[in-house]
């Protein structure tokens, strides 16, 4: 079917501003395939149902809007932890700033290097989960990424590395337009923690494809920081094997436009997937969590826990779906999305969805918007806690259910500290 003229023009303009890497090697077929999908789907437009609450204009424009380089004046959140750091500056791998990429239990290669090879394990994964994730809902910006991303890492987890792998992003140019594509394969019984932190670029399009084999485990914790002028579009595609575990948590503070999509497919029995997010937005802030979890096996568990604190006209969006396929019996699905609106100007737009084709499942979902609980606030104040501190305590308490999804207590504490700092700066 031909694309509407407006969409066709926008797509062509964007494609004209991009070029595939000179050497594509073993990723060539996937890239060409992805490009064909983009041409067929067209880039997202304002009339697309899936983009009803978030305007994609600045994500698809030929040039990235300018964004001031942000300096927090403090170390990045996971910087002082013992982890293997892989640094990207404006979307380009920086060997000087990165640690040595050798670590027992894991093999790490640059996507750029893989593009110079005809044979590599990542060939099977690059673009594969993204392509699967295009149905039933098209995600053209992910396909665009598969086609044109020049950098990223391929992480092959074969054991249990002794420390987390930390992807650190730095923003250096006001006009940077970065695309990163990461692929992660977790082998049977292997386990890894992947952290992501830092302002990546003025505009950032990231895809992460995660394939977790039977009994494998991946923990992902991400902090999207205070670089307020960024425009970020991220996709996480995860496929889970039997008895495997995928847990992902995202902290988002500020940002004029951030959309994080999670596309998770439970393909093996007894698998567990938890995706959670805590976001705090003030003023000219737009944050969108779009989640699609497909249960296609027996006795799997999925949890979606998203909490948003919004003030001064900030906007939060949640589109979350649980799809339980025929035969996915004993599914245990849970979804909660809540916003704490600290004033009348802020808004939370939520679209929770369940689609169930099996008859022996337990799925629950809830979505709420509310203000600070006045009774609880008075209780705290009546014990001597000043109103600002009491408000902050209740705000953190509101976010706690999401933060509790982080398994590593050291990481969780760091996230809580950042949230406390954010609140303290505003009270």
């Amino acid at each position, binding site marked *: 079917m031909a694309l509407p003229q407006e969409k066709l023009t926008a797509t062509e303009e964007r494609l004209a501003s991009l070029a595939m890497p000179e050497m594509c090697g073993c990723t060539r077929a996937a890239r060409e395939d992805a490009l064909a999908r983009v041409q067929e789907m067209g880039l997202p437009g304002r009339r697309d149902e899936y983009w009803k609450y978030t305007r994609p204009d600045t994500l698809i424009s030929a040039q990235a809007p300018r964004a001031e380089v942000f300096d927090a004046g403090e170390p990045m959140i996971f910087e002082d932890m013992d982890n293997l750091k892989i640094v990207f500056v404006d979307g380009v791998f920086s060997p000087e700033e990165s640690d040595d990429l050798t670590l027992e239990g894991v093999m790490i290669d640059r996507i750029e290097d893989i593009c110079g090879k005809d044979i590599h394990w990542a060939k099977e994964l690059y673009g594969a989960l993204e392509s699967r994730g295009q149905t039933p809902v098209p995600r053209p910006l992910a396909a665009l990424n598969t086609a044109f991303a020049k950098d990223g890492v391929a992480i092959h987890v074969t054991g249990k590395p002794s420390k987390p792998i930390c992807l650190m992003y730095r923003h250096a140019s006001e006009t940077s337009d970065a695309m990163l594509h990461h692929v992660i394969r977790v082998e049977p019984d292997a386990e890894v923690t992947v952290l992501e932190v830092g302002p990546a670029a003025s505009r950032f399009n990231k895809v992460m494809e995660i394939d977790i084999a039977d009994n494998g485990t991946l923990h992902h914790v991400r902090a999207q920081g205070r670089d307020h002028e960024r425009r970020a579009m991220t996709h996480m595609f995860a496929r889970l094997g039997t008895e495997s575990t995928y847990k992902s948590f995202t902290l988002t503070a500020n940002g004029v436009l951030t959309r994080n999509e999670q596309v998770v497919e439970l393909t093996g029995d007894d698998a567990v997937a938890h995706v959670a997010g805590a976001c705090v937005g003030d003023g000219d802030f737009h944050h969108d969590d779009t989640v699609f979890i497909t249960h296609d096996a027996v006795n799997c568990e999925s949890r979606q826990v998203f909490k948003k604190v919004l003030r001064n006209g900030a906007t939060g969006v949640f589109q979350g779906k649980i799809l339980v396929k025929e035969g996915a019996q004993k599914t245990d699905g849970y979804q909660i999305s809540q916003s704490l609106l600290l004033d009348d100007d802020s808004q939370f737009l939520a679209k929770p969805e369940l689609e169930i084709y099996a008859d022996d499942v337990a799925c629950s979902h809830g979505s709420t918007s509310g203000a600070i609980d006045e009774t609880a606030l008075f209780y705290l104040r009546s014990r001597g806690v000043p109103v600002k501190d009491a408000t902050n*305590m209740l705000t953190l308490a509101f976010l706690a259910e999401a933060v509790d999804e982080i398994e590593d207590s050291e990481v969780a504490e760091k996230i809580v500290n950042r949230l406390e700092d954010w609140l303290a700066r505003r009270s």
Partner: protein
Amino acid sequence: MLEIKNLHVQLEDEDKQILKGVDLTVEPGKVHAIMGPNGSGKSTLSYVLSGRDGYEVTEGTATLEGEDLLDMEPEERAAAGVFLAFQYPVEIPGVGNMTFLRTAVNAQRKARGEEELSAADFLKEVRAKAKTLKIDADMLKRPVNVGFSGGEKKRNEILQMAMLEPKMCIMDETDSGLDVDAMKLVSEGVNALRNEGRSFLVITHYQRLLDHIKPDVVHIMADGRIVKTGGPELALEVEHNGYADILAEVN
């Protein structure tokens, strides 16, 4: 200690007068009980004294050791020494009981210009006080009042009172929802806190609680006023004859 003069209060949202001229003086070290039928304004009085939103004082004054309470924020009243034991203690998911207690204790100390309690000292004190109230370590770790039984919630109120060491304790129907054993435990906790410098205002429907917490003075409140004041025998009279006789007498 506490001096209330001609206090008139109405609801902010609606034009409804609840307190219609309350006069009450509580001396240091004394326990005053306020009894009265439903809707007489007892709980409103406790909320107005502790600073809850939603009430408008249209006339009268309330002072604590000469300081105007009505002009203070709830947290300032707390730091000045007012403590309200809630009839329905509030559940706060996501806030640990211990964190809450420590924040409250140190906030009050800070407000009074005192040094904050160190983590170690705080822990020592809270453990000792919790033990006498039969509050176990698990209850201290759990979120504030979440999943607590009625008795546990009231004991938790008394623990807060013990930690915050207020001058003026207002207890709003602390006996409601308590079985005999729990009432005894709570009363013992309160009695342990009685001293020369600390006053209590015990609001209750029933004389039962006053068997355990012996009042010095008993007031009967009806239709927004204190209509009768007497000694402990007044509570017994209510227990035997109900409020009807007293109300008939004063009307």
